[in-house]
């Protein structure tokens, strides 16, 4: 199982980009941490999610 924002998901084997697209994230507004490491934007396509990965996605709204 993979933990995405605290929830167990069956996402092992997918690319990170595939997961983010399926979850409906707008890629330009998010920051992604995988196993406590920040993921560069350029790596979303190439990272393949592994079993027991822990992924945190933070989505921003505008205003400041």
């Amino acid at each position, binding site marked *: 199982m993979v933990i995405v924002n605290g929830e167990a998901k069956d996402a092992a084997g997918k690319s990170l980009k595939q997961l983010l697209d399926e979850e409906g994230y707008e890629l330009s507004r998010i*920051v992604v941490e995988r196993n406590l490491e920040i993921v560069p934007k350029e790596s979303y396509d190439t990272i393949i999610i592994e079993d027991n990965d822990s992924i945190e996605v933070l989505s921003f*709204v505008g205003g400041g």
Partner: protein
Amino acid sequence: MKKEEIKEILSKSKVAVAGLGGLGSNIAVMLARSGVGHLRLIDFDVVEESNLNRQAYSLSDIGKPKAGALLEILNGINPKAEYEIFQLKITPDNVEELFRGFPVVCEALDSAQEKAMLVREVLLKCPGATVVSGNGMVGFGAANEIVTEQKMKRLYVCGDFKTGIEDTDVILAPRVMICAGHQANKAIELILEGK
């Protein structure tokens, strides 16, 4: 910790503030009042009349660069601190140069895309930095919706996480200042915890 010890630690601390609008100008004022010894302040923009409903500026500041106007305000509050101002746009290319060596970085930019870019780039390129970000403080509603949460290893986020300028053009001083207060408070907490 005793008052004198806190004062000493804060006077030797460094914080960078990215964006000097509703969040950043108020964060900087609070940190200056608290005696933070070194602030680096970055914004490319100039003060407009429409900013005065929530930002730390006055009528006489209209047309001035925000960084310069804020420097005058801060020197009027605590002239003993060191203030460095940069009137420029933050891009992935200048993040490392601007934020390296700052243990605490307050993200106070306006657009969701720029917020995400800054947080991502600082966390990737500045391994010693903890980021305190603002996310969701426009519109109206309960003050208690605005919270501080640790979202990642070196990232704290303050806001209601949902109310953005994409949904409303209502921006009111209290919610913006509550969020700025959360950010300034977390910055001080991090400094006093020795982060």
